[in-house]
């Protein structure tokens, strides 16, 4: 099942290259696979330092780095309607048919979805994280999410746990939420040609940001206990963060300098080389919507030990992962069980299974189905938008309606001041395909609707 209609998609997120992370990789890989399926994809993000303006990435992926500076945690300053002019300009000049926002914490994404809805575009939102309900930050963020998702066309979550969390936080109807898990680039994460020997020592690899959410405090208790129980175990810890100091203190206090190696921050390009030096991958996160890190580890042929939190139990089959409760005693038990399972693990077989289980092209095809469903949603006028927002709360509903009305008025003012006909549409640039695909095929120059100029600009 799939729709052969080609879409023109605008991916919006504060989190994109040159930042490296789960959301960034998801947007990049999904965009590349959608380009290969014949769709047009444009990414909109904020400027990173001097990286401002239009850039092109592999495969002709066009990225707009809008010069709005981030103000907190790589998110742009929330202005509610301040982004409307630039978002409108990009939507018209790229002839966008659908807007896809990513991540709850991305204010740019919320702005784009809000402004696009008011202009009549269909929007899709992907939530990548789990969030709480009790603390002040979560309460406010959930209210913002409720605002954004009140009239979104469709939503995507990366696991069933994440779907439950998003539906509860935002009040969105469960029928509108699709579950499409993340994937892993198995070509990049391959096992070592000669896997490390298991006879002399067992190497346990940890690669994560050393912060509270990622369970760095658990590691501080698990590592000395396991080193005491298993004399042939060695740890390799990659990553940096505020909890690094605690781990180094633990290492000094227990004299584990020769058994615990701290690598510091590991660039993404070198993650594979660190993973293939180990036998077991340890993930101690306290909360995870999905956890791409364990996919990368499994793709490299490592047996995974992880805390049973969030969406982690949905990610790998039982023979590839050992789950534990997020407390030191159960984690030590799980690691000991994993050590006994090691002789049965063949890294290459595990890698081949991962290639079949997780695939970005599959994610793109499933996302295509969501896009087709979103485009079939009926068009809504301003009054229908307002009625949905009014139900968000006694005071919040009225505030949201006020913001929507201001957006609507600003949109019409812009239509008078700079009509859509004055904004020139950008011709599509088509990039060279690989040499293998070129051989034996005839050359074709694509022309735009206006035949005055071709595709060669530079």
């Amino acid at each position, binding site marked *: 099942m799939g729709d052969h209609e080609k879409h023109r998609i605008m991916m919006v997120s504060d989190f994109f290259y040159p930042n490296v992370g789960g959301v960034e990789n998801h947007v990049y890989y999904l965009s590349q696979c959608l380009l290969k399926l014949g769709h047009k994809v444009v990414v909109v993000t904020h400027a990173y330092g001097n990286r401002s303006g239009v850039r092109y990435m592999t495969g002709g992926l066009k990225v707009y780095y809008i010069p709005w500076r981030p103000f907190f945690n790589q998110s742009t300053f929330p202005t509610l309607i301040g982004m409307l002019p630039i978002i409108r300009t990009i939507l018209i000049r790229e002839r966008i048919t659908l807007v896809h926002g990513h991540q709850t914490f991305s204010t740019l994404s919320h702005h784009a979805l809000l402004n696009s809805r008011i202009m009549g575009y269909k929007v899709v939102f992907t939530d990548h994280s789990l969030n709480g309900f009790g603390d002040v930050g979560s309460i406010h963020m959930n209210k913002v999410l409720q605002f954004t998702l009140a009239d979104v066309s469709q939503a995507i979550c990366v696991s069933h746990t994440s779907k439950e969390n998003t539906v509860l936080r935002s009040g969105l109807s469960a029928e509108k939420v699709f579950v499409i898990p993340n994937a892993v680039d198995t070509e990049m994460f391959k096992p070592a040609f000669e896997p490390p020997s298991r006879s002399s020592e067992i190497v346990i690899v940890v690669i994560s940001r050393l912060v509270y959410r990622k369970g760095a405090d658990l590691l501080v208790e698990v590592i000395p206990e396991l080193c005491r129980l298993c004399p042939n175990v060695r740890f390799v810890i990659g990553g940096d963060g505020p909890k690094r100091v605690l781990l180094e203190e633990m290492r000094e206090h227990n004299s584990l300098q020769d058994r615990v190696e701290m690598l510091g921050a590991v660039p993404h390009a070198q993650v594979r080389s660190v993973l293939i030096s180990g036998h077991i991958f340890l993930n101690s996160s306290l909360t995870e919507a999905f956890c791409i890190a364990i996919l990368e580890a499994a793709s490299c042929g490592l047996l995974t030990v992880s805390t049973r939190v969030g969406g982690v139990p949905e990610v790998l089959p039982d023979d590839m992962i050992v789950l534990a409760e997020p407390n030191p005693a159960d984690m030590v038990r799980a690691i000991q069980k994993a050590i006994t399972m090691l002789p049965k693990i063949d890294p290459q077989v595990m890698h081949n299974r991962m290639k079949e289980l997780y695939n970005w092209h599959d994610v793109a095809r499933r996302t295509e189905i969501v896009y087709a469903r979103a485009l079939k949603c009926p068009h809504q006028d301003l009054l229908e938008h307002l009625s949905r927002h009014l139900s968000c709360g006694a005071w919040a509903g009225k505030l949201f309606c006020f913001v929507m009305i201001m957006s609507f008025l600003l949109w019409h003012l812009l239509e008078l001041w700079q009509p859509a006909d004055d904004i020139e549409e950008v011709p599509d640039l088509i990039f060279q*395909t690989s040499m293998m695909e070129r051989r034996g*095929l005839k050359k074709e120059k694509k022309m735009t609707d206006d035949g005055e100029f071709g595709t060669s600009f530079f």
Partner: protein
Amino acid sequence: MVKFSISKGRYTYTHDQKYPCENVDIHHIILKSCRANYVFVYTLAVLLLASALYLCILGGKSISIVYYSMLFDIFLVKLLLPKPVKKESVVIMPAFGVQLETHYMSGKIIRCFVPIDKILKPVLVECVTPVTCYWTLSLMIRGESEMVLVFKNLRPPVKMLVHVWKALCAATDIKEEALNTCTTYN
């Protein structure tokens, strides 16, 4: 002698040959002045001054409110009505250089000459600001980190910029086929 001309909105592009030498290529972008802007801004300024005078004379406020409103009016006029540009021209003299001219309504002309051997490449660039996105034509200069804008004050449509770009490419001896890195094969 006008060889070619296109108009869109307030911008008109003409390609003419003023000089007897056929090698010299001249491209103009002419901007039609918008009287509505002037009427709106000056009306606003007059209303502001009138309000200040009313408050001063009949409302009993201090005369300083009139001075502040006059200062604000001057600031408003400077901000909303920048120096009016009548047209911008590009005179291409192959094997010699490119002259960029800005003609103002007052008759003043500012010229800038770029020698042909200093031009690395003319490029069409998309510029992104916090509120909009538009095309510009720029010259990459050898040994300089900053590009030179061909049209410094006007933002003509890209359909007009492409003609000037092609002429600049021909003059700087860059073949279009060599630039065409964007073809695909079917």
